[in-house]
């Protein structure tokens, strides 16, 4: 197990390097002038100064030099200040967000974490429960219904489903609005008496004792969570079901039955824990996927997370901002995948004991 973890850890710096190279390569499709907003917010207007600027920041230098500057930044010749440098968390200036990209990310990311926090339970637990039920009642009506459900689920594009639930629950019934919070709640949040302890809105609302704000935030998150659940259930149902069926066919399950254990114990104590091994990986990757910002779901519901921010920047062709988000996303995914892999090794006895 130790060698497995070490080998896995060694992959991390390599992946980090790879992702930076990939994103740097995409940056090279921009002109030097467009790339300048990696280093500054206001570009010099006249031609001459612009040329000087490109010289100073080495935007016309060979690729490996540019890559290095992009990593560590460039010192401003007059003030001696460091400009740019993704290793120091400076991702450049966001034209569409009118603020540094890093600041935009810092502003949006807590919202995505908040959504993930509340989506995990319905998405994963219910999905697994459905899968176990389908396997236990193999070929029964619950299994057939699950099969039809999962075919429809995988065929439903997120944005179509999102628009449909908006049509029903917002336009028609007015129960669950899109966005983050209502205007009155926003006023409460921005008032000086409201302390942002964690910057996660629902948690902060509870810590400040504002149950009304908390409920309002949940109300706005309901439809995105419903959508995420719906599109993920199909996958969870399938994986859990087939893994569970596979396990139920094992000889030790037959043995357990033969020695007269109640069927409930056979299923939930003997079969389910082992059937969960592939499901745990899937669950891990889903959480990672949610954390990375769900571009389409966030956009449909106008939810201010990092996914919708990336999409908004991309649709206005603000590439520096979009690539900043991609970089951040890549970092999160690499670290989170590492955690999932290590956890997996811990859970699966075949890996743990090897």
């Amino acid at each position, binding site marked *: 197990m130790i060698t497995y973890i070490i080998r896995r850890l060694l992959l991390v710096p390599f992946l980090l390097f790879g992702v930076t190279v990939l994103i740097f390569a*995409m940056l090279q499709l921009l002109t030097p002038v467009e790339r300048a907003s990696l280093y500054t917010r206001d570009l010099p207007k006249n031609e001459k100064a612009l040329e000087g600027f490109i010289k100073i920041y080495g935007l016309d230098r060979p690729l490996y030099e540019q890559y290095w500057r992009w990593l560590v930044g460039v010192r401003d010749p007059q003030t001696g200040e460091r400009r740019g440098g993704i290793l120091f968390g400076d991702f450049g200036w966001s034209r569409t967000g009118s603020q540094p990209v890093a600041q935009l990310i810092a502003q949006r990311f807590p919202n995505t974490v908040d959504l993930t926090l509340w989506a995990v339970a319905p998405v994963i637990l219910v999905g697994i429960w459905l899968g176990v039920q389908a396997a236990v009642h193999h070929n029964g009506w619950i299994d057939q219904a699950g099969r039809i459900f999962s*075919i429809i689920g995988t065929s439903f594009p997120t944005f*179509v489903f999102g628009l449909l639930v908006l049509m029903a629950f917002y336009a028609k019934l007015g129960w669950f609005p899109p966005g983050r919070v209502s205007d009155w709640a926003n006023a409460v949040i921005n008032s000086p008496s409201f302390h942002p302890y964690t910057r996660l809105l629902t948690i902060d609302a509870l810590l400040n004792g504002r149950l009304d704000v908390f409920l309002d935030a949940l109300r706005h998150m309901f439809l995105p969570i419903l959508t995420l659940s719906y599109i993920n259930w199909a996958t969870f149902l399938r994986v859990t079901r087939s893994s569970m069926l596979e396990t139920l066919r094992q000889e030790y399950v037959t043995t357990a039955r033969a020695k007269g254990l109640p069927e409930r114990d056979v299923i939930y104590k003997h079969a389910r824990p082992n059937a969960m091994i592939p499901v745990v990986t899937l669950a891990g990757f889903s959480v990672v996927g949610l954390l990375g910002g769900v571009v389409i779901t966030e956009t449909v519901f106008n939810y201010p997370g990092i996914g919708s921010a990336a999409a908004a920047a991309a649709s206005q062709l603000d590439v520096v901002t979009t690539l900043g988000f991609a970089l951040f996303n890549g970092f999160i995914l690499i670290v989170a995948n590492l955690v999932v892999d290590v956890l997996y090794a811990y859970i699966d006895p075949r890996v743990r004991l090897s």
Partner: protein
Amino acid sequence: MPENTVPSADNALLSETVSLRKIGRLERILGPENYRLLKGLLRTPASILGFSLIGLFILIALLAPVLAPPLNPNDPYKIPRDGFSAEPRPMFSEWRRNAPPLPFWWKTVFHSDQWVHILGTAQGQYDVYYGIIWGTRTAFKTGLIVVFSTFLIGVIIGSISAYYGGIVDNVIMRIVDVMLTLPFILAALIMAAVLTPRIGRSLLPSLIALITFGWMGYARIIRGDILSIKERDYVLAARVIGVKDSRILFRHILPNAIFPTLVLASLAIGDVVLSFAALSFLGIGTDIGYADWGQVLSFARNWITSLDRYWYIVIWPGLTLVLFVMGWNLVGDAFRDVLDPRMRGKI
């Protein structure tokens, strides 16, 4: 006595083990294993429904000029607009300005020579029906181009990786790992956004983006298949008698490895069309008013508060997309079942 006589009926063992059925030409060409896959595919009710849906869409795509005659035959993908007002208009409202020619069946069916917006108009008076009909062509076009290109790239890179092995394999597979790190839709979104200012708004930026980040899966599958086939005796035999590397790869290994992946790839058209529509929906890619489903749906984004009144701008393009993707998914599911060795003999 002629040599090829059918074994007599009393030779029970032989008649059980030797196949007496006629082997058709198709089976001879495809080989018994691939033939079994194909036959299995055409038997399950789910895949038959899937094939029917796909067939229906092929028909719509072929008949597009008859179903919705274009205003300008040289530029049929531009959705005709009936004026410029923002508010959507309901189904079967009259076509006032800029009406395209009436399809010939309209008069016989509806006894009227007034062309109407069958499925209403979206924001900016774009005709929804027209967008859906011609969007079907866009869907097949993008789907086929992306699937063909990603498959080709995947097969070439995967085979090089598998056949040469060692350091080449390692480098290629690590590149694949890196490219798989970013979520597919985000990566494609960024790539399309980077390309759009360079090559202008058209189908191309999204196509290139989907191809750039779409080939890795095929490369992995093909690599795995080749690695297992590479060790078979007939490959070793070919190598022993001195056949060239490239010939072994293309004539001996690939034909034996490629079929399942080829079918899986062609069934990915549904997913590709979905991703393409997602990009259009997010406002990336084609010009506003280009006939593609994601674009037609994206018009609904500004009318979320009144979607109950303007339901037709979501339901029709949404339903079209769902049915299209479902068709491919149904066939894909059936195919995966047939491929599963545990199902052998049951289908």
